[in-house]
């Protein structure tokens, strides 16, 4: 009964985890959902007299492989999140059809198959316990396959290194060269470097935009990763609201900066967190 209880508790969790993977917009959420599924699978393994596999599942899969995924997500995908708009024509329909077909097919097979009502159990097959029996098989019957798989792993490791390795073709630019480049190519306003967050601001936290000398907050001062995550604070709340008197006073002298303000203002009209779709779209 314990197993049934475990199954009926963990199976929905596993399914939910799997659905979370498919449905979450952000890869990092998906990865975490998948980890949940994997852990529940590990429990199932243990429940089905495969203690060794269950542990391996947790250690290797959840521990190593999923961590690898998370690293890569952090490397490449933090500021990307999927749009739900399907770009390939009929892909959704075809996929639905195919998946439904597979479900029907496999379920039909599973249900129709003449399987033993009660499992045979592995007591006989594992007299010395699960791990020893598996060891016997791996280093006995399947030793050849084991060696080949070992070779495959090594090859994969070397392959990954080869793939990700980047030969340095140019010298790393020195600070001086970067500076010259900034002056010669960039806008003169950016020549001195981007503003640092928190300067002249009410906070010196990294999510606070810097205030420019004219008092306008600078969006460029905030790390774009924070913006993408929606973790940055809105520039709008730091904007100095000019009174009518101020406008009268500086109507003529600050014409150019007003234009700049207008631009910033229109930017700021959008919600700071932004819609993932549009932001992601722009970034892409």
């Amino acid at each position, binding site marked *: 009964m314990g197993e049934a209880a475990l199954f009926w508790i963990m199976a929905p969790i596993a399914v939910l985890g799997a659905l979370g993977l498919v449905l979450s917009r952000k890869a990092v959420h998906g990865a975490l959902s998948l980890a949940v599924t994997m852990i529940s699978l590990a429990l199932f393994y243990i429940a089905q007299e495969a203690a060794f596999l269950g542990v391996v599942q947790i250690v290797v899969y959840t521990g190593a492989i999923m961590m690898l995924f998370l690293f890569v997500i952090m490397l490449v995908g933090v500021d990307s999140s999927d749009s739900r708009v399907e770009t*390939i024509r009929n*892909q959704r329909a*075809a*996929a639905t059809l*195919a*998946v439904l*077909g*597979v479900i029907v*097919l496999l379920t039909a*097979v599973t249900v*129709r198959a003449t399987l033993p009502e009660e499992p045979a159990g592995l007591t006989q097959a594992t007299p010395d316990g699960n791990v020893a029996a598996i060891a016997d098989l791996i280093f006995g019957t399947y030793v050849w396959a084991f060696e080949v798989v070992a070779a495959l792993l090594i090859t994969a490791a070397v392959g990954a290194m080869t793939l990700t390795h980047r030969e340095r073709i140019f010298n790393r630019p020195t600070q001086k060269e970067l500076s010259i480049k900034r002056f010669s190519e960039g806008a003169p306003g950016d020549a001195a470097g981007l503003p640092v967050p928190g300067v002249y601001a009410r906070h010196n936290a990294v999510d606070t935009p810097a205030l420019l000398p004219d008092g306008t907050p600078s969006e460029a001062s905030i790390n774009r990763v924070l913006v993408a995550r929606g973790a940055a604070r809105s520039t709008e709340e730091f904007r100095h609201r000019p009174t009518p008197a101020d406008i009268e006073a500086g109507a003529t002298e600050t014409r150019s900066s007003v234009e700049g303000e207008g631009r910033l203002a229109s930017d700021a009209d959008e919600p700071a967190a932004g819609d993932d779709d549009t932001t992601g779209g722009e970034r892409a």
Partner: protein
Amino acid sequence: MTSTLSALATAVATEGGHGGGQAVAEATGVFDLTWLLIAFPLLGAAILLLGGRRTDKVGHLIGCGASIASFVMGVVLFAAMLGEPSDGRAFTSQLWEYVNAGGYTVDVSLLLDQLSISFVLLITGVGSLIHVYSIGYMEHDERRRRFFGYLNLFVAAMLLLVLAADYLVLFIGWEGVGLASYLLIGFWQHKNSAAVAAKKAFVVNRVGDMGMVLAMSSMVLVFGSTAFDVVFASAEGASTGWVTAIGLFLLLGACGKSAQFPLQSWLLDAMEGPTPVSALIHAATMVTAGVYLIVRSAAIYDLAPDARTAVVIVGAITLLMGAIIGCAKDDIKKALAGSTMSQIGYMTLAAGLGPAGYAFAIFHLLTHGFFKANMFLGAGSVMHGMHDEVNMRRYGGLRIAMPVTFITFAMGYLAIIGIPPFAGYFSKDKIIEAAFADNWITGLATLLGAGITAFYMTRLMLMTFFGNRRWKQSEPPHESPSVMTAPLWALAFLSVVGGFALLYFGAGIVDWLAPVTGEEHHELPMPLWLLITITLATVVAGVAVAWLMYGRRAVREDVPAGSPLTVAARNDLYGDAFNEAVFMRPGQYLTRSLVYFENRGVDGAVVGTATAFGGLSSRLRRLQTGFVRSYAVTMLGGVGVVVLAMLVVRLP
């Protein structure tokens, strides 16, 4: 069975067959050297054509020497033959085995009998004279050596033609003379007209060759052999239908080579060749090969009266066509060529009369060889003096400037129109007699032909040698050198005495040829003196009309409009126009439409299939979007199908 047959054929050849009614003996002694006749000119041709510029200096001498050597050999053989009994003058000498395929055996062997020796003497004799004449005529041509090479090649091929003892070997000679004729008509290749004429001659001859090939194929089918002895010996056993077919096929071949209707069109164009060529090939020898073929195949024609009738009709039509064309031509060589056609028509007609006419056909062939060669060489002499002018309307009064040419030409003239006692009188009269003996229509055709002949030859004489001088050149035309006039004298002499001598010298040509051709006496429908008188009267009438038109009146230099018949005759009686309208134009159209059909139809179908597949592929290519996820869907679907298939097969 076939092998026994061929063995039998060999047996026939060795024991003595029935070439034309007399026993054929294995050649011994001097007759075993018959092959030398061919070898001399062949060697000459090989030396001249392969020798290159080294033989330029002495080329003409080698050429003449080869021809004369062959003539001497011919005389020796003739003398030796005279020493044999009159029914034992046929000799065969086997040179080598040619082929043996599927039971069909051919030996390269030569048959020397009365008929072939007559031709040998004509070919080598007249040929040698023309060789000598050519030394002078071609003196200024830088390619004279090659000219003599071709002439020697011709003589060799012609001798092979008349000496062969098998139709296939005869055909080798037949095509050999065709090649020589092609090369010599087109000798001045830089002239487009010459090249076209040469090609035309060859192609038209090839139409005749179709007949030859089919005749030989029929012989293989009917007799299992093409050897003379086998074919002649077993001809009686064949059905009349097949014999007639063979006769008609042979006639087609003869028409091609002898320029008989309906394959006559090439001969007039062939006058593009140098004049000695016209004299030797297109007057004296090669064009008579068709007559030789018919006479040689006497055994076949004797059994096929329908085929003989066809021969007579062809001969009669050509006789009149040639004569009419000859009346209207202003080109001296073309007028003579029309005359040649007409005279060969006489021979063909005679040959078609059967045993009654074979001997006379050969008789006329020989005398014609003399006087027509004489006149062609005379014409060549005139052209030589007139700077290659051939238009008779630019001649006139040449008898004073070129007396030798005039006198010798006149001998030929009197011979051809049949004035006794010149050569043509004897031979042509015999044919007219035989024709009348056969039936009235052929007789009248020959008689009419004689009248027209008299007319156009007189016209030619008058326009060339009499009347006012119409040539423009400042210094008067000069007489040709003696190397050219000597042959003229010789031929003129033969034109004078040839007929009488051949008919009455010794036993006469009729008896001489009788063992080969057979003999048959005919009953005339009227007394002989009356016929001779009528013939002579017709000839005189023809001469008189010509004199009235061209002798009394001055010849105009421009071409008068003329009657519709004259215009038609000037256009070769529309033979070329007919060929062009019926064969060439539709042929060109057919060729063009076939090329179109090939490119669009046959090749188009192939290329179209390829294009269709290409189009289909580019459609299918669109399925390849490059999107991994599309592929994944396909893959998943495919996996599903595979699983399903496995289940369907495995599940109960």
